[in-house]
């Protein structure tokens, strides 16, 4: 580039000098002409040839570079001339200048200038200029190159590396560099920052990908585990339910004392096995994040009371007191998962009863705070204190770990799986709390935790849910009843009155059985009767029998009657005497609501959640017969397990039902088409068509239009939520192992008119 520039400059300068020379020659010529004119004008005008010749020769002697001079007159006649000796034609600048004087042209002066003589100095100067220029250019060029190299090329090369670094071609981060140019420095800093940002983003993206992969794997594993658990739950509960069921059947049969003892062991072992299974499944679900907490309105006080109900007999048998203390109102309605809360309290209180030989177990609920805002929120501290064997500090440290009891001797002495506390700990954590324990050996233990609940915006009366001893029932509101309560204990009267009046019912009290019967005879219409078991004069059982026998009238003989007693063992007798329900004292709102809902003969589905407490299984009266209306009703039993089918069939037969058997949904549909049935009891999981599909097809009319509204109970070893049960379109959900009393309740709730097939 430089060479071309130099050549161009040289040519330019040379050509420019040539022009200069030409102009100079012009000027020189004019000057010489003027000189000649000045010196020889008279000679020129007079055409004085000799004089002019002298003049030209004099001009030539000046060595101005003139090789030839010719002066002519206006007729081109030579007046004078001179030619240099070494004159060579062709290498001259030629000029011809007119000789004018006072506007008159007198001739021409013709000059030939020696080019070399003229150009030589120009060439020398040009060469000098070119040398200077070239030198300058090279010098400037070198400086420029160095400048560009130092201030641009190297920084740009460095920046290029950083760009590569930014776009991940190199993992090595090049630190910021201080350049001479502020702009380059800023660019460099921006690149470094961009590189860091890109690497950070790539790292985060990689992390996210990993997390997604882990999450996906975890979700897949969780799904697989849930599926496994579900399958295991079903596969284990089903035969276990059959074992327990047949044990019950045996127990209700004519067997010897030894055989009855053997059956007792079977039942006890089976129940324990069921408990272990439930605990293990629960723990597995919790570990697999398979527990979904519900958020439904419930009464915390009721939860505590129900736990007391479930454990008080056990406590009584060990001669320890069991108390429930709350400092908040009984009708405090909050939103949460009552079943899980009850499970925790029951676990802890159950352990308290189990590990206490004397003293007391106190279950308390303490309202710590109530926040008012957009939505009210309460903080309740739940506590289970016992005066039992307590735990050593080492045990306290590991009490929340699965399968850890105090030591093996404790396990042998007291039994248990060691999972309850661990499950409770995890459930409390799921519910947003933290289970803590203080314990001292030989003094006792205190398990406590705090949970936050939003206060339900609905009133107790509006809520159609009630939590009751492990059951969740959807019951229509039974407001505005006229209720007769036969109760001799004033405190119980007060409790019942409080509960019933809050529910909007009219309450009339009788202090004993006699007064109760008198009130019934007095033609005062009552919708429901609550009858205490132990009363003076005529106790509850006698009154019940006499009322059912019609002594107080036909209406009274068929009215809904619930027996109340703290003696849970009397419930069978009460049922045999004609009681529709048996409420174990202390009387809870939920129990009352439940009975009242049942007594209103609502058509809403009842969703029954499993009672995980083996001790609280209520087995139906083996000899029960609830009236002639049940006789002859047909019930379809659908289950792929023959043992379960047989067990249910036996119970139904005892209750007076006739049964049909199907091995799966398809079989059931075919049989329904051929024979009228009043109800269907179906297992959920079956090969081929499962229970949900079967029920949906029945509702859609695949078994005939008459079957669209048939009562259907769905059995499963898995827990179902209300929504799942609703979606399944079953009337009731019955867990496995099957609580027969609930099965019986379902059967008794089905419509009277049998399904008739279209001819």
């Amino acid at each position, binding site marked *: *580039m*430089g060479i*071309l*520039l130099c*050549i*161009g*400059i040289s*040519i*330019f*300068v*040379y*050509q*420019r000098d*040539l*022009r*200069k*020379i*030409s*102009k100079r*020659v*012009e000027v020189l*010529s*004019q000057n010489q002409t003027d000189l000649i004119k000045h010196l020889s*004008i*008279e000679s020129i*005008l*007079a*055409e*004085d040839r000799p004089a002019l010749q002298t003049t030209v020769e004099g001009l030539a002697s000046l060595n101005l570079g003139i090789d030839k001079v010719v002066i002519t*007159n*206006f007729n081109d006649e030579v007046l004078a001339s001179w030619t240099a000796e070494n004159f060579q034609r062709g290498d001259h*600048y*030629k*000029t*011809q*200048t*007119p000789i*004018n*004087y*006072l*506007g*008159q*042209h*007198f001739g021409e002066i013709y000059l030939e200038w020696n*080019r070399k003589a003229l150009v030589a100095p120009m060439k020398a100067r040009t060469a000098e200029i070119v040398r200077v220029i070239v030198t300058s250019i090279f010098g400037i060029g070198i400086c420029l190159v160095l400048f560009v190299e130092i201030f641009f090329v190297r920084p740009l090369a460095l920046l290029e590396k950083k760009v590569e670094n930014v776009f991940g071609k190199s993992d090595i981060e090049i630190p910021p560099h201080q350049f001479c140019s502020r702009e380059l420095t800023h660019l460099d800093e921006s690149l470094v920052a961009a590189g860091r940002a890109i690497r950070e983003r790539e790292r985060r993206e990689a992390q996210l990908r990993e997390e997604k992969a882990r999450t996906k794997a975890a979700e897949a594993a969780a799904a697989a585990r849930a599926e496994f658990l579900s399958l295991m739950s079903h596969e284990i509960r089903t035969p276990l339910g059959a074992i327990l069921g047949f044990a019950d059947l045996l127990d209700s049969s004519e067997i010897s004392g030894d055989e009855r003892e053997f059956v007792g062991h079977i039942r006890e072992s089976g129940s324990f096995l069921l408990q272990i299974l439930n605990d293990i499944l629960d723990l597995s679900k919790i570990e697999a994040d398979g527990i979904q907490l519900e958020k439904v309105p419930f009464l915390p006080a009721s939860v505590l009371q129900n736990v007391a109900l479930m454990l008080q007999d056990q406590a009584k048998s060990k001669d320890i007191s069991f108390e429930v203390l709350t400092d908040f109102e009984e009708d405090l309605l909050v939103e949460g998962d009552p079943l899980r809360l009850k499970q925790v309290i029951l676990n802890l209180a159950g352990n308290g009863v189990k590990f206490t030989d004397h003293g007391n177990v106190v279950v308390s609920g303490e309202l710590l705070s109530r926040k008012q805002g957009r939505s009210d929120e309460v903080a309740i501290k739940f506590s289970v204190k016992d005066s039992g064997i307590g735990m050593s500090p080492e045990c306290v440290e590991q009490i929340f770990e699965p399968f850890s009891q105090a030591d093996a001797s404790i396990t042998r002495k007291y039994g248990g799986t060691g999972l309850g506390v661990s499950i409770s700990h995890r459930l409390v954590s799921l519910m947003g709390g933290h289970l803590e324990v203080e314990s001292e050996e030989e003094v006792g233990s205190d398990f406590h935790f705090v949970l936050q609940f939003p206060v339900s915006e609905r009133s107790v009366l509006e809520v159609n849910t009630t939590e009751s001893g492990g059951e969740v029932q959807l019951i229509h509101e039974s407001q505005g009843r006229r209720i007769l309560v036969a109760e001799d204990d004033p405190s119980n009267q007060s409790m019942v009155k409080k509960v019933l009046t809050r529910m909007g019912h009219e309450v009339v009290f009788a202090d004993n059985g006699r007064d109760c019967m008198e009130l019934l005879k007095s033609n005062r219409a009552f919708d429901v009767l609550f009858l205490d078991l132990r009363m003076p004069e005529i106790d509850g059982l006698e009154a019940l029998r006499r009322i059912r026998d019609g002594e107080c009238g036909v209406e009274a003989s068929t009215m809904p009657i619930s027996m109340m007693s703290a003696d849970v063992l009397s419930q069978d007798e009460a049922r045999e005497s004609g009681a529709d329900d048996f409420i174990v004292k202390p009387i809870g709102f939920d129990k009352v609501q439940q009975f009242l809902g049942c007594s209103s003969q609502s058509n809403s589905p009842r969703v029954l959640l499993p009672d995980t407490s083996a001790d609280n299984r209520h087995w139906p009266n083996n000899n029960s017969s609830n009236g002639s209306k049940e006789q002859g009703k047909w019930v379809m039993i659908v289950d792929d397990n023959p043992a379960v089918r047989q067990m249910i069939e036996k119970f139904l037969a005892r209750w007076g039902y006739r049964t049909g058997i199907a091995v799966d949904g398809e079989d059931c549909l075919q049989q329904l088409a051929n024979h009228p049935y009043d109800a269907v009891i179906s297992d959920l999981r079956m090969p081929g068509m499962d229970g949900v599909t079967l029920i949906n097809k029945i509702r859609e009319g695949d078994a005939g239009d008459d079957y669209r509204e048939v009562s259907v109970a769905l059995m499963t070893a898995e827990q179902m939520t209300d929504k799942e049960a609703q979606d399944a379109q079953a009337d009731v959900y019955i867990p496995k192992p099957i609580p027969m009393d609930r099965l019986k309740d379902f059967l008794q709730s089905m419509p009277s008119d049998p399904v008739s097939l279209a001819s």
Partner: protein
Amino acid sequence: MISKFLLPSFSFLLLFLFGCADSGSPNGTETSESVGSNPNSDVIVFGAYTADKASDVVEEFAPTINWLESEVSAILGRPIEIRMKIANSYLAGISDIAIGKAHFSRLGPASYIHAADENPGLEILAMESKKGERTFKGLIVVHKDSSIKNLADLRGKSFAFGSPLSTIGRYLVQDLLISNDIYSSDLSNFAYLGRHDSVGMAVAAEAFDAGALKSSSFKALIKEGYPVKQLLSFDNVTKPWVAHPNLDPEIFSAIRQAMLNIRPEQAKVLDIDGFLESGPEYYDNIGEAMKRAKHFDDTAKITSQ
């Protein structure tokens, strides 16, 4: 890649083009000035001779010639260029018009006679007019303190003549002296000093007792304070402008027309007030005087300066 060389190439091209453009035509001829050179115009030559300095002659005649050039061009309707050719002597001037080196020329009366003798074909364009007359005075001057009162007093005195070819300076004054019976031998000394003003200055310097010069030169000397005075005057015929026969007749007519119609203010530069028609007859007496003057110095030594 291309852009790398674009700039230097472009620069090189620009420099080259600028360098090559208008290099000055080293082999070309330059004419920085030309005066009316019109290849399509007729060029005629006006001849004049240096009675004085050639530049003075150019100065004297250039305005008239330039005017004449434009007038004749206008008359003819085409461009006419008139060049001046200055002869360095009377004889050269006479020769130029006689042989045709000059197309037309302004001659003194004696010069005209000589020229006509050489080329009888010369034609008079016009003659100068001095105060509307065809004649003007020549003078014999003496020192202002001279005792010479008349021609007779010149006997035995020295006398300065002008040019041997001068009408006033020689022929008419010698004819006058002869007519008064004064010949060269009657003078103590005489010389031909050439220029009229030289004669006047010589007399003023009393180098000569008397001399003959034209009245305009005498007036100029008087104006400059030279101590001379007029002794007597004599008539001379104004100068003719003559044309060589090779002058294009159309141009000849145009020149004559222009001259005869010259405005006085334009003619003033020639110290005349115009031109008058003329012919050879107006110069016959000059010829005769010239013949007679030949006898003035048959045997005298002629000194010419």
